[in-house]
């Protein structure tokens, strides 16, 4: 990614940005997030198909914000996260330079929200076929099978909140699970606490999730929680024709409506 390194170097040299958030070499062949502040270090930037972590999460991190105006290396889902964050008043116009990389490896520098929208519209949302396949497999199960499947998976959860921490859309200063007046969801990782937590997470992400899959990647216990958010996203796409992270002018599926929305489930 020679072009990427040069672009990053120039941005830092010309003081366009104070930090470039990107991927560098990690341990055991894993890539890791790196924060380049010195043009000389731009060579440490790498990019390959293993670079999957959704770096948008760092844009709202206080410690990173302190470093100054950022540029961020962004795959399509990351760009969509940024758009959604802008739609939700978390990222201001012009506050970040996006070094967007298309699936075929083309680098584009994006400075305005308008261009960001153009970028995503020309690089449509993509869901990993294996995820859709898993989704269908579960949908085909009987109710009991589905219940047992999720109970097995979710009862393992030990509430490390890697799913929440790794998700750019989970930026609340106080998560509902930390409300104790009343205690909506128990922070304890017993079965009820886990099931309620993951239902709530899916509902709170509904209509905002860009299906980057980071939550499942982050989960140390390999619980396929991204399927829950994928499920709600698919429902919202199919029923309301809305996909998160496509437009910086907010159209949040659950705060808008059409008078003729489907309601066959209501009697």
């Amino acid at each position, binding site marked *: 990614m020679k072009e990427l390194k040069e672009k990053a170097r120039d941005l830092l040299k010309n003081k366009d940005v104070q930090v470039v958030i990107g991927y560098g070499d*990690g*341990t*055991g062949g*894993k*890539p*890791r*997030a*790196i*924060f380049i502040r010195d043009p000389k270090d731009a060579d440490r930037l790498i990019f390959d198909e293993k670079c999957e*972590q959704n770096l948008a*999460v*760092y844009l709202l*991190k*206080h*410690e*990173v914000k302190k470093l100054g105006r950022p540029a961020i290396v962004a795959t399509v889902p990351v760009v969509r996260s940024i758009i959604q964050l802008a739609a939700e008043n978390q990222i201001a116009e012009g506050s970040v330079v996006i070094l967007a990389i298309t699936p075929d490896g083309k680098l584009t520098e994006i400075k305005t929200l308008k261009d960001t929208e153009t970028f995503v519209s020309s690089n449509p949302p993509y869901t990993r076929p294996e995820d859709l396949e898993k989704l269908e497999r579960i949908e085909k199960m009987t109710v009991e099978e589905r219940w047992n499947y999720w109970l097995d998976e979710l009862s*393992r959860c*030990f*509430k*490390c*909140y*890697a799913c*929440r*921490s*790794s998700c750019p859309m989970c930026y609340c200063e106080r998560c509902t699970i*930390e409300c104790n007046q009343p*205690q909506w969801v*128990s*922070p*304890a*990782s*017993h079965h009820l*606490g886990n099931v309620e937590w993951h239902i709530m997470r899916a509902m709170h992400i509904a209509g905002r999730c860009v299906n980057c899959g*980071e939550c499942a*990647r*982050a989960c*140390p*216990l*390999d619980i396929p929680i991204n399927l829950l958010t994928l499920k709600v996203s698919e429902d919202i796409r199919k029923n309301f024709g809305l996909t998160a992270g496509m437009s910086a002018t907010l159209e949040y599926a659950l705060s808008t409506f059409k008078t003729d929305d489907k309601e066959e489930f209501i009697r």
Partner: protein
Amino acid sequence: MEKKTLTKENLPRFLKKLQEDGNRVIAPKRTGEKVDFSVIGSPDEIADDYIQTVQSAKFAFFPKVEEILSFTANKSGVKINDKDTEKIPSTVVFGLRPCDAAAVASLDAVFNWDYKDNLFNSRREKIGIIGLSCAKSDNNCFCTSLGFGPGDTRGSDILLTELTSGDYLAEIITDKGKAMMNAAPELFTAEPMEAKEKNLADIKAQFKPEDLAKRFPAAFDREDLWLEQSLRCIGCGACAFVCPVCACFDIQDEGTTQNGTRLRCWDACGFSLFTLHTSGHNPREAQNHRWRQRLMHKFAYMQERLGVLGCVGCGRCSRACPADINILENVKMILEAK
């Protein structure tokens, strides 16, 4: 210390016997691509050919959620029932790596240094540990740098080491170990000829444990280092929850004002709310403060106060971290810091 042979055929028989004697057996089991500890139905569920489990068997000693007491309240007052420790099942943990076994000593220290934690001690009392030496390692492993080792007997009641034949060298370390063996003495045969050492993983030590106490306290004010190390930390608790030593917990009351239970749940110093005061003030406001706390606690404070390390070099946190924060790398950075 007695040394015996336990053939690969006899191992499952032995575990079965322990189960028949009413022990709950916790052992490594395959879930998806990963291997993790859980209660097993039969010995043939036990996974082999792996380097390290996702979690240690810490939860056997210190469950992720455990009841401390339950209460009922009414107009005539409040009635409190302490957790009935009699109900705690006697348990055999099989396949604990020497690093994990060594970590139990750290848990003992944490739960007994000022207040003797009856709940922890009762569980601990009822657990027999059958360790399993490491034949393989990866570059996240650094037990040897901390003074432990792939064949270390500390913490195990029985330590098994797999021999080239596939049979096991069984070192009977404690009375508990002896008692377990005596559940089926016929399964244990004479000490094998083959030396233990050549069957152990070769893990090069990268620093000396003594260096830690020398270097860490001095690094306390090195904001730059802590920030550098933690900038990509997303503030989850994965590292703490997979750690065999981390023992921070939160107390949670559940139920109604009339009846409920008090629970002890795992907590982690990486969470931003871990030290948040009611006033809104947070003494560890930034992630780098929390990160510093994590490392200082493991490598300085625990040694100072409890005489044990807060880390056994199992490398789990490095493997689990979604942001690839590698503890070995960071410890070395502190030790080499100018």
